[in-house]
């Protein structure tokens, strides 16, 4: 097993900078998810680790080895392609055995090891079949088996679930997680699906336009997005964003947030942390489930008007109007609401995320 280290890696295709100065350390045995919208450079980053692309700058390390100049076959990696790339002219057994055969492993050992991984993935019944006789899920398992039978230090997967039906996807997702626990290879997993990323990753690296904007564990990425982009990309519905301003009233020294036509006093710790940003235009982010909805506007609750009510089964998704701004709020199904009703909103100011209005970057870590 080994850690992966990318140091200032660049990859340029003509005018397109696919990977821009990426520096990232993936710890030994870690499951790291590369998450980002389509075209942001996830696949290219993965291919740079694999050696399928030559980097235009920077270095790649696997363990203690500088593998920047090594071909893919010498990097001790396994890779699962988005298309699976299971050889159509070989039976499942020969597909899984391919890497071992190339390394001239003795035949008896090949048989033993193929049998082992086939059992691990529950495909031992399929060894004699051709790929055309398999379902998408089965083919995906063959691709995984073929990659892990070599017991690589590093396992790379490019959107391995994107070609599967929604139902199978859930099942395979859980299996991949279990498999990682079992084999312990350092894993880099590419996806554009934030739910997948949150459920699988030990850590998530969020990419945008070839750059990594945040690397953190799933909870941190979700609760404390590094910028407006991450907050808007992760979560369903995405984080709410409102323009606001931080002002300091004369008396007690605590700060006040002016947003959506209201003044919201901030607690002491937050006030102290944000002191240097007073007077600055900010963007305030808050998650849909961090807002409490009261049936009536009362006390210090912010008055809001219900625009849309969408039952999602387990929850209700409300679209609200607060002082001309639109908010998405997730509430329990037992709340009695209907469109046009006036409600009150309450939230914990500690759950607010403050970003610079210009750069979109979070003001606090």
């Amino acid at each position: 097993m080994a850690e992966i280290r990318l140091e200032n890696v660049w990859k340029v295709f003509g005018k397109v900078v696919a990977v821009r100065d990426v520096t990232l350390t993936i710890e030994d045995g870690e499951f790291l998810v590369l998450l980002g919208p389509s075209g942001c450079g996830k696949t290219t980053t993965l291919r740079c680790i694999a050696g399928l692309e030559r980097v235009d700058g920077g270095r790649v390390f696997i363990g203690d080895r500088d593998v920047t100049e090594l071909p893919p076959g010498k990097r001790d990696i396994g890779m699962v392609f988005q298309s699976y790339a299971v050889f159509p002219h070989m039976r499942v057994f020969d597909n899984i055995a391919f890497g071992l055969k190339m390394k001239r492993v003795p035949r008896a050992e090949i048989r033993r090891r193929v049998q082992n991984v086939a059992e691990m993935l529950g495909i031992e019944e399929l060894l004699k079949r051709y790929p055309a006789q398999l379902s998408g899920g089965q083919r995906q398992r063959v691709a995984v088996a073929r990659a892990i039978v070599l017991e690589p230090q590093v396992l790379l997967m490019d959107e391995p679930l994107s070609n599967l039906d929604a139902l199978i996807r859930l099942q395979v997702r859980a299996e991949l997680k279990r498999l990682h626990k079992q084999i312990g290879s350092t894993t880099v997993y590419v996806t554009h699906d934030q739910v997948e990323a949150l459920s699988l990753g030990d850590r998530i690296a969020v990419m945008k336009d070839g750059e990594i904007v945040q690397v953190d564990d799933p909870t941190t990425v979700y609760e404390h997005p590094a910028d407006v982009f991450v907050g808007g990309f992760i979560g369903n519905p995405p984080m709410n964003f409102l323009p606001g301003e931080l002002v300091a009233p004369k008396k007690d020294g605590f700060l006040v947030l002016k947003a959506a036509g209201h003044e919201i006093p901030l607690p002491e710790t937050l006030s102290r942390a944000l002191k240097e940003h007073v007077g600055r235009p900010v963007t305030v982010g808050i998650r849909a489930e961090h807002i409490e909805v009261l049936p009536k506007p009362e006390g210090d609750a912010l008055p809001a008007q219900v625009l849309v009510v969408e039952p999602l089964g387990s929850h209700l998704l409300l679209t609200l109007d607060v002082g001309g701004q639109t908010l998405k709020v997730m509430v329990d199904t037992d709340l009695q609401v209907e469109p046009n009703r006036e409600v009150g909103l309450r939230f914990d100011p500690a759950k607010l995320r403050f970003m610079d209005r210009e750069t979109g970057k979070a003001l606090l870590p």
Partner: protein
Amino acid sequence: MATVDTPVEARRPRPLRQRLLGTDTLLPYWLLLPSVLYLVLFFVIPLSQAIVVAFQDPDTGAWTLKNFSDLLRWDYKFKPALKWTFLLAVTIVPLQLVTALLVALLVNTRFRGSQLFLYICAIPLGLSDLAAGLIWYGIFADRGFLNSLLYALGLIERPVTILSYTQIDWLFGAVVVAEHWRATAIVLVVLVAGLQMISKDYLESAEVLGANRWQRLWYVILPLLRPSLQAALIIRTIFAFEIFAVVIALAGDFLPVLAERAYTWYFFRQNLQFASVYAVIILAISLIFTVLYLVFLRVREEERR
């Protein structure tokens, strides 16, 4: 079938296109019709006539193998023709396959200008075989380009005679070179198309799994290229047994081949029977090879992508 419940759709008047062409399932056959007509008119009918003539006694009209035995007895060039045709085929076809494969692999690396390179390689495709034969005659003749070049370079003092009935091996070599130049491009085009169908994911997968260049060629590219290899081999082998104009241009009848014998018996000796026997023999050989390729290079249904 009971027609109790005719669907509404079936009762509507059918669109004009459907009335003219029948149902959609018939359409493909209508589209095939012109080429089928062409084949019947210019291949099936003359061919069946040739077969009939070959197996009939010209005097009595009875079915017989007499024409074949007569030919064996009278045409002392039959065995040489058979020998040279086979030798040419088994020399030229593998040579073309290897050349075409190497060039196709080169083109498939998509180097700068690879498309232009492919077009240039394909130019001979546009020439008739007689024209190609004459071009190479112009090269190999006593006062041809090759001799002029060697002379200009000071490598020879006097023209060297390459094309002479006294050196049949040289004639053979000249035909191989000319035919290789003329007809390799068709194999190349088929193989390039086949290579482009192979997803690069397969090759990269193999690369990650530790396969070197040769292993990727042997275990991934060639097996996936099998349908194209099969098509190219069938086309080339059939044409190889029909080799004619290039041989005539370079060697006259000093290098006898089957198609040349058929031509000679038909035009110079007016012997329809013997010409037909040759046609049938060429047909039989082509058929046998086609079947062999279809069997041995078959891609089973379950191995398809």
